[in-house]
């Protein structure tokens, strides 16, 4: 069954066409250097003796991908969630998946996301039955420099509540990944997705998150990264039914020549929905970030509240940041705003701190810390804080301004 869908996705890929530098959604990506590696083989899961070192102490359950292939043997899956390899899921959840994929492929505009649908390894399927509350660590291991294409399909029943934390492990340099996550949130359900893309500096990493929210559903995404040779996040969220809400936040802390790019589309397709986007980047060295976001409010989506904010703090002369927020509003009773800043440390704030006894370096470090910590402090999982604070310190150490 799944091979039929791979073929359809392949066709869609060809229709969309490979990314070109002049296309809006790829204009800031260094496409000239982009070469995706050959596809990884599924054979490497067996070579991993133990994954204990990569586990998070706060999570009893872990879903493991190795080189893009879901590994049921390495995973320890919670009983209250249905977790299956995607091809098996087609036997029990075929109708749902076919409907979902038909719509998704038709609407997909992003080549990387469509490519994953065609080329993904052994995908994983998660179903959270109604009223279930669960937490799950998703561990993405790449053992080689071949292209891994992990795929996760997840659907939540009414009032289900799932917290997911994803971490990444690269065992070799030049790791290459093109991940897709596809979420369907049933009525009143809730997903909190925490992505910890702390990556090898030589890695090429693409990931796409797609989500559809039914009535009263809530999706919270908090995505951290320290960037990579190329790193791009693509978000596309449809607020499909009334009173659903989205919080989409991200922080990139970029040192050296690392890059992180964000493309976000929020589609308000029903009345009374709320979306808040806040993406931040702190840049040192010769790093590069970009943000391109769009809020789309359809004619039916009255009483929409939609906010989008992108703040970039440039800490060196050579770092650069591009920002392009967009609003397209076709309903008349809407509260929406977008904003973007690209700034250096404020001279007035520095003077204020120095007049209180802090040296220039202490003052700069406190301000840059404050910029990052606004989002880091939103994390409630203790074991994740140390690696993020370490990434922040690397940026400060690499900062020309300090």
């Amino acid at each position, binding site marked *: 069954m799944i091979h039929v869908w791979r073929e359809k996705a392949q066709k869609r890929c060809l229709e969309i066409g490979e990314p070109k530098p002049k296309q809006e959604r790829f204009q800031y990506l260094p496409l000239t250097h982009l070469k995706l590696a050959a596809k990884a083989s599924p054979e490497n899961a067996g070579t991993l003796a133990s994954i204990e070192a990569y586990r998070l102490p706060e999570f009893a359950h872990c879903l493991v991908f190795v080189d893009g292939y879901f590994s049921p043997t390495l995973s320890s899956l919670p009983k209250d969630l249905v977790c299956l390899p995607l091809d098996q899921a087609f036997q029990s959840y075929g109708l749902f998946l076919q409907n979902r994929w038909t719509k998704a492929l038709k609407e997909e505009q992003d080549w990387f996301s469509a490519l994953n649908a065609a080329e993904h390894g052994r995908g994983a399927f998660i179903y959270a039955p109604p009223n279930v509350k669960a937490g799950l660590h998703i561990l993405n291991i790449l053992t080689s420099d071949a292209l891994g294409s992990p795929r996760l399909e997840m659907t939540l029943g009414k009032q289900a509540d799932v917290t997911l934390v994803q971490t990444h492990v690269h065992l070799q340099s030049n790791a290459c990944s093109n991940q897709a996550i596809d979420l369907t949130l049933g009525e009143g359900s809730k997903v909190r997705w925490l992505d910890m893309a702390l990556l090898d500096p030589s890695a090429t990493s693409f990931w796409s998150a797609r989500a559809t929210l039914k009535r009263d559903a809530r999706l919270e995404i908090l995505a951290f990264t320290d960037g990579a040779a190329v790193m791009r996040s693509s978000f596309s969220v449809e607020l499909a039914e009334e009173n659903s809400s989205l919080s989409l936040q991200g922080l990139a802390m970029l040192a050296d020549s690392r890059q992180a790019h964000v493309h976000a589309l929020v589609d308000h397709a029903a009345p009374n929905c709320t979306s808040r986007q806040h993406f931040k980047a702190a840049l040192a060295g010769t790093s590069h970030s970009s943000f391109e976001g769009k809020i789309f409010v359809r004619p039916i989506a009255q009483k929409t509240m939609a906010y989008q904010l992108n703040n970039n703090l440039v800490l060196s002369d050579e770092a650069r940041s591009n920002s392009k927020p967009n609003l397209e509003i076709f309903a008349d009773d809407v509260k929406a705003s977008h904003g973007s800043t690209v700034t250096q440390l404020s001279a007035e704030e520095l003077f204020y701190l120095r007049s*209180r006894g802090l*040296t*220039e370096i202490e003052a700069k470090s406190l*301000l840059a810390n404050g910029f990052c910590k606004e989002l880091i402090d939103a994390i409630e999982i203790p074991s994740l804080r140390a690696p993020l604070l370490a990434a922040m310190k690397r940026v400060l150490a690499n900062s020309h301004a300090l």
Partner: protein
Amino acid sequence: MYLIEIKNLHASIDGKPILKGLNLQVRKGEIHAIMGPNGAGKSTLAKILAGHPAYTVTEGEIWFKGQDLLSLQPEERAALGLFMSFQYPLEIAGVTNRHFLKTAFTALRKTKISEADFDTLLAEKMALMEMRAEFGDRSVNEGFSGGEKKRNEILQMALFDPDLAILDETDSGLDIDAMKVVASGVNRLRRPDSSLLVITHYQRLLDYIRPDFVHVLFDGRIQRTGDATLALELEAKGYA
């Protein structure tokens, strides 16, 4: 022996002269008020004393506790016992007020203080300024009202215990109740040998913080000096 002595101070910003030969001497324990119309150079004087990098001193000297103040960095001036309460205190996102205050306290005292000891000290000073404990956990000045920001400035004065405190229009934007809290905080905090330089537009604040001397700053120079009654005269007749 003066605590601070300003001699023939000339200063400009972006090439535009603001101070044009200002002289002022303050002894230990004295309260001086500087009044004057908008644009006279009052806030410029405060910022120059604190070491704001945007102003250029073109002529003159400033001696503070026997040291050449103009040769010192802002943080060195603060460590020497000079404090300026900002007219417009800055908001610092992502840094809690408590963390900021403790970092500054440690930097100024150049000694470590335990978390518990600092919390005790902070709670005592916040009570003095009638500030609720939550103002320790919030980001520095972020979402504070005008009055709360000014209280937070005087809270810093309370913690750092400076020899010279410069209050730059601390009364602006305050209602009468908030002003009384701020003024009574200032009065209770002051040691007999510490000094105050109160910069204000209006005589109102001086009903609560009684100055020994009142100076009128106009066109970049001190034009008149008198006692507290001068403030009343200015209130009645204006600066002209």
